[in-house]
């Protein structure tokens, strides 16, 4: 920086503080505009992530792995690894080794009947790992009283709708009947230890959940036979990429697998999420646009108001360019300061909101939608791009918004400006 340059910077700095009112007003526009933009995007990202998570955490998981021929018929015999099954523990270990996988749970399905007393209903028997399943889905946590069935203890949990239709209470005897893999009719007695209530009638009326080994026994299947592995992943909005990556990793080191994300498995949920995302995007654009406009407007008005000030400076000998430089430097310093202040406010707000999001359950109660259990929690998601983009946009706005007015103001000869002509 030349000597002359340094002078202009000093002048700019002094200008800023000479008119504290103006500086503060502009700075507040910048800082608060920044806060709003970042929080806004965080909120919409959060709502979207929440929607996806809630849609998938109930039962389906964010990614599912099957034998290649399992879908769409879901034939009982199409277990992973075929009739011979596979080393489930090893498979789960390989899956868990992927850094994007947070938890995995094996499942087995059987279609049959659930009967109690005089009543019988069609049921979808779901065999789960009582330890691993809660890490991936929340189905079993929706039980009101009662507990998860234990392996080997002949215990079962059913949905609230099914329990109502069969007039079941905890501790009642339940008969599960299903065609087994060897063609015989699997049947056994169980005790009802839990009733789950997801709020989704389809789930609450169809599923009977028992531990995986118990179902394998009922269906005359070897311990290595499972139909599905459901996963919870780190970035629910990026599951397609994670699924492809995972499929690549798992290739060759075990039985052939098909790895699918929730988008492929639940297209209607994907649609809802996409639509919500697009609408949120529009709102964000509007808010962002308004913030930019606010900053620009403030800068423009402020600069026009300084017409006489510039005239004096010019009368004292500065060139028009000199005045322009002052304005630009002011804009830079103001921008930097204000955004720093903005970031200082925003960071704790985002952090607090992200780690302790307000739970609106007291306000709206909990419920389900699109086959999902919604916890009405408003949360924000971090993003690296948003703060940077917002900062850049607002900074540039503050710098450039002042240039035009400064230029216009200095077009007028100083004498005229001072005389208000």
């Amino acid at each position, binding site marked *: 920086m030349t000597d002359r340059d340094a002078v202009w910077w000093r002048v700019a700095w002094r200008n800023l503080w000479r008119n504290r009112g103006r500086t503060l007003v502009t700075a507040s526009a910048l800082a608060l505009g920044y806060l709003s933009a970042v929080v806004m995007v965080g909120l919409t990202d959060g709502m979207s992530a929440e929607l996806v998570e809630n849609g998938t955490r109930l039962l389906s998981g964010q990614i599912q792995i099957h034998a290649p021929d399992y879908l769409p018929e879901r034939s009982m*015999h199409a277990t992973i690894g075929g*009739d011979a099954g596979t080393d489930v523990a090893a498979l789960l270990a390989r899956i868990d080794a992927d850094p994007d996988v947070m938890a995995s749970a094996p499942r087995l399905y059987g*279609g*049959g*009947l659930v*009967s109690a007393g*005089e*009543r*019988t*209903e*069609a049921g979808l028997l779901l065999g789960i790992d009582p330890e691993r399943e809660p890490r991936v889905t929340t189905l079993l946590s929706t039980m009101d009283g009662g507990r998860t069935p234990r392996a080997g203890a002949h215990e079962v949990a059913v949905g609230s709708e099914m329990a109502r239709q069969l007039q079941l209470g905890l501790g009642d005897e339940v*008969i599960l*009947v299903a*065609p087994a*893999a*060897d*063609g*015989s*009719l699997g*049947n*056994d*007695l169980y005790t009802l230890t839990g009733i789950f209530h997801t709020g989704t009638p389809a789930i609450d009326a169809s599923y009977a959940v028992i531990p995986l080994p118990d179902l394998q026994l009922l269906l005359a299947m070897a311990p290595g036979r499972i139909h599905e592995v459901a996963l919870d992943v780190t970035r629910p909005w990026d599951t397609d990429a994670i699924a492809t990556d995972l499929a690549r990793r798992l290739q060759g080191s075990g039985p052939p697998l098909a790895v699918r994300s929730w988008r492929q498995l639940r297209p209607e949920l994907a649609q809802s999420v996409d639509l919500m995302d697009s609408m949120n995007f529009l709102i964000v654009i509007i808010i962002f646009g308004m913030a930019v406009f606010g900053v620009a407007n403030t800068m423009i008005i402020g600069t026009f108001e300084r017409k006489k000030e510039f005239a004096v400076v010019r009368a004292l000998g500065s060139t028009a360019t000199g005045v322009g430089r002052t304005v630009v430097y002011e804009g830079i310093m103001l921008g930097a300061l204000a955004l720093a202040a903005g970031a200082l406010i925003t960071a704790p707000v985002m952090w607090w909101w992200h780690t302790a999001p307000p739970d609106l359950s007291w306000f709206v109660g909990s419920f389900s939608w699109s086959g999902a259990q919604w916890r009405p929690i408003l949360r924000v998601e971090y993003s690296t791009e948003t703060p940077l983009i917002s900062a850049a946009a607002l900074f540039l706005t503050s710098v450039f918004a002042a240039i035009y007015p400064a230029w216009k103001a200095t077009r007028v000869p100083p004498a005229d400006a001072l005389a208000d002509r």
Partner: protein
Amino acid sequence: MTDFPLYPIPRAALRRLARAALPAVLAGLTFAAPLQAQTAREIIDRVDRLLRGASSHGKVEMRIKTEHWSRSLEMEVWSLGTEYSLVRVTAPPREAGTATLKAGQEVWNYLPRVDRTIKVPPSLMMGSWMGSHFTNDDLVKESRIVDDYDIEIAFDGERDGVPVWEFTLTPKPEAPVVWGRIEEQVRKADLMPTWVHYYDEDGTLVRTMTFSDYKRMGGRLVPAEMRVVPTDKPDESTALIYHELEFDVGLTPDFFSLRNLRARSR
């Protein structure tokens, strides 16, 4: 969801027999006068109605071969017309005692392993019985053949030196049946069915039923072995082999009770 316990097989057997009886009547008429659709219909209807009163008791072996497993069951069956039937598995020992009772619109299953009886609502019945290749359509239907099909003779002559008739049964336009066409071959000499072909509406052969091992049982000549093979999976099959069969055994509706459902065979 497929495979579920349903109605017993022997009703299918009875239908086969009804259709077996029909040509005999037609044969009689051939000599007398040209076949007329109206008259044939009346006769078939009468035969059909005759069979509704029949009671039977038998011992059957069912051998099922599928892509994933093969199995053989022995069963004892009782039936009264099309309304009542009781089927009890007698072998293998693991499944012995499993029984299905149909009385009117109600279906009950007894599961000996857990010593419980469950009532199966008709709307839950689907797919095959005990994993066999017999379908719901075969077993549930109580409607009459005449109501559902138009019957014509398609061939009258010799096949491989054996004089046979071949009938074509075309479903009436609004009949609640899934088949597009059924063809059946019957031996003229003893009026025994030899095969039945089931076609869908596109004319694709969907499954084939064959009859063999003709012998006298319960005072009548019957095919002791029936076999069903799906066309799309020719390695799979279900075969029913009658070891014993008797007719007009004097059963009444009371016999078809829940108590008898649970009883063990002697």
